[in-house]
């Protein structure tokens, strides 16, 4: 349940970010939005990378099939905290989440 809510929150946050940069694309696929966000953010598009990571992870968690291994509590917790940083870039994640944030910071 938490995954669904977190994902929805993330999607909203991404829309906000796009809107702030005059590149809103309501109705577009998440992939498109994230691509737009990445290009819009330019070289310091770390936030786009984190959003991408969190969204992919949460989607997997939301849609996980019976034959797949379920995500663990910690994983979900990580993802949610990343969402937190996307929503509020000023939010500093706790040390336990720092690893996850660092993880999500890898991009081109």
């Amino acid at each position: 349940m938490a995954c669904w809510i977190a994902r929805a929150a993330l999607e909203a946050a991404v829309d906000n970010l796009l809107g702030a940069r005059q590149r809103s694309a309501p109705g577009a696929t998440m992939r498109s939005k994230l691509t737009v966000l990445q290009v819009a953010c330019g070289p310091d598009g770390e936030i786009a990378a984190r959003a991408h990571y969190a969204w992919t992870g949460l989607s997997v968690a939301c849609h996980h099939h019976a034959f797949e291994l379920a995500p663990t509590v910690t994983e979900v917790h990580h993802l949610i905290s990343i969402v937190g940083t996307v929503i509020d870039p000023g939010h500093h994640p706790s040390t336990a989440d720092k690893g996850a944030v660092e993880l999500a910071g890898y991009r081109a």
Partner: protein
Amino acid sequence: MASVPSMTNDLIFWIEERLNADPDIDVDIGILVLAALEGDADLDDYLQGRAASYPSSARSTEEEPTSPATGAFLRSVQVTGFRGIGAPATLTLEPAPGLTVVAGRNGSGKSSLAEGLELVLTGGTYRWKNKKSAQWSEQWRNLHHGGPTEIAAEIIEDGSGPIRLRTVWEPTANLVDEHTTTAQRTVNGTKGPVQDAAVLGWAPALETYRPMLSYDELGRLLESGPSELYDAIAKVLGTEQLAHALARIKSRLTQLAAPQKAATADRKALQTEAAAHDDERAETVASLLRKTSPDTTAIRGIATGVSLPDQGIVASLRVLAHLESPDAIAIDAAAARLRAAVGAMADAGEAEAARQVARLDLRRQALRLHTDHGNQSCPVCSTGELNEAWAAASRDLIARQDAELRRLSDARAELEAARQTLRGLVQRRPPSTDRAPSEELDPIVARLRQAWQAFESVPEGDLALADHLEQHCADLAAATAAVRTSATAALNERDDAWGPLAARISAWCQAWDDAAALKPTIERLAAAEKWLKDNDTRLKNERIEPISEAAKHAWSLLRQESNVDLGALRLEGQATRRRVTITATVDGTQAGGALQVMSQGELHALTLALFLPRATLDESPFRFVVLDDPVQAMDPAKVDGLVALLTKIAKTRQVVVFSHDDRLPAALRRMNVSARIVEVVRGPGSAVSITRVEDPPTRYLNDADALCTDGNVPDETLRRTLPGLLRLAIEAAARDRFYAGRLSHGDALVDVESMWNKAHGTSQRVSLAVHGQIRSLDDWLRTESRRKGLGVATSAVHDNLRSGTKPKDAIYHARRMIDDIRGGAR
């Protein structure tokens, strides 16, 4: 953790500092340590007192093995007729830092590629090294391929240029080991001679840094004995010089200790022998030898006969051997003399003597009367006349009688003397003959006693004495001689038995003393050895610090949900008890060894955490690291961590990962990592195809396509976004092309990087890719696609895509331009 920072190689300098800082160590021992580090000759010189000076520091005479290769990247691997690959299959890689995943199902030929690469580089594969059966080494040819088997690899050395390695087998070769590998350099475009690959000298570095890590090998390393793990890690620390110094000292210690060992063994042996020996000298020596530090002076004395026992059988025998009987000649002479004296006395006449003396006295007085008072009548008889004639006659008479008397007293004196002399020669029987020292001598000594007894019991009377002694003398002499002879024989017999043992004991004494003289040197060497051992461990752990830190960091990325926290990595112990200690805490509680508390998957992750730092040390001449199926045993959560770790390493290293697991590419996509993905697919007849599936330019172009296809993206947003996206694609392609071109040509990576960073704007970057330098692109921009592609990427970035241009067209042109850049079209 980009790569582990390099460690100072100046080992001797470090040792000197330690020596100075250590308050307990003797100056002499310190110099000994430094001499041992310098070399064999220096150490021997100092030990023997030839070199008194402080060996020079800050420069080590011992050659630090420098690797001949510097910064090698992989360009391509081509495999023909080997294992699962039939027709030639080529894997092309970007010879620059970055991450490439070679994905393929099991049996696709992916492992054949990995093994082929390993074989051409190292001459063997780990998988087969440990499989002894011949079957494995015989089934290496591809069964579909009729032609010869060959593996070729192109390696690009930073700053030097490409090297082509080639491994071939004779058509008749049966075993996989029967191959020859050649190397050929290309310098400034010209190909050099084809030489044996050994000329590159990469073997030691490959062994030490192991840039190719296979799942098997990694797993085995942690499970193998502690000393193997120790060696695997210690190898990169560059402390061989210390190890050599320790070996030098140890060999000398063994050498020097040998005499003492031998002497102690001999002591025990000799002690047993001496204890079993009859001779009483042996007995004494045996008790002296029982001590662990025997008195060699005393022993030597007894063994050489210098210090004689004054009691016991041998002493008695010695006395008896030198027994003298009374001098027969002297006795004969003295007896003769006595007899003569007796005869002379008889002649001289005893009886008349006293009366004669009295009468002579009277006559003497009368003569004096006459002399004093002249002629007169004889006062005695009153008849005679004391006159001149009478005086003269009296004088003659007196003189004659005086002479006779003198002769008599002389004879008497002589008799007395002769008697004394002869009596004096009657020696008492010596107490040494009281008892025979041994049974066999008993009768002879008894006989002697008898003879002496007879000799001693002298009769009264001079002549009887003389006769007695003369008679018994010979007998006594004979008996004494007999005793002497038998005593001497007995002594010789004993000496013959004792002699050899005594000689050996004497020699042993010398050996013992010689060995003891070595003690001080041994102690000095032992002190030096101990200090070095302690500091060897200390130095190793100082140098392992960066690896330990890197491992901790790697673990923090890999561990994901493991509640095991990694502590420090330490090397401990010596010789057979050397081991690696990895401390760990589990949820905050100290757990002792990490290895014991980890699950299988965690152990695998730990191995990666330990050995990736080792493979990516600055000291390693190889700028690539190849991982064979690292994801196999990994928890899904850890795959992300692995990708994070690999991406970090990929900033400065070429990372190639072979994997059959979907999760790895999925994680790459998820984390938006700019990795290249290559897919390996097997077709019929072992025709293996290797295709580039994804790389940064491709991904950007695909994203652009998706953006276009998505009907719900507002036109304005699309036009604002597309130019930037295409620009990213074009510049990524340009970068790859530029890097590959320059590095293949032999430029140094640092120079290439700085050139790239100097370029600003897409035009300059494309120019670098196409021309290798920043210059005008006009002649290159001949085709429409190139012009339009560049146009979109440059001017449109700020102004958005012009309303006249269709997004799809823009993407089309960009794609073609990228193909041109990639293809090397001029």
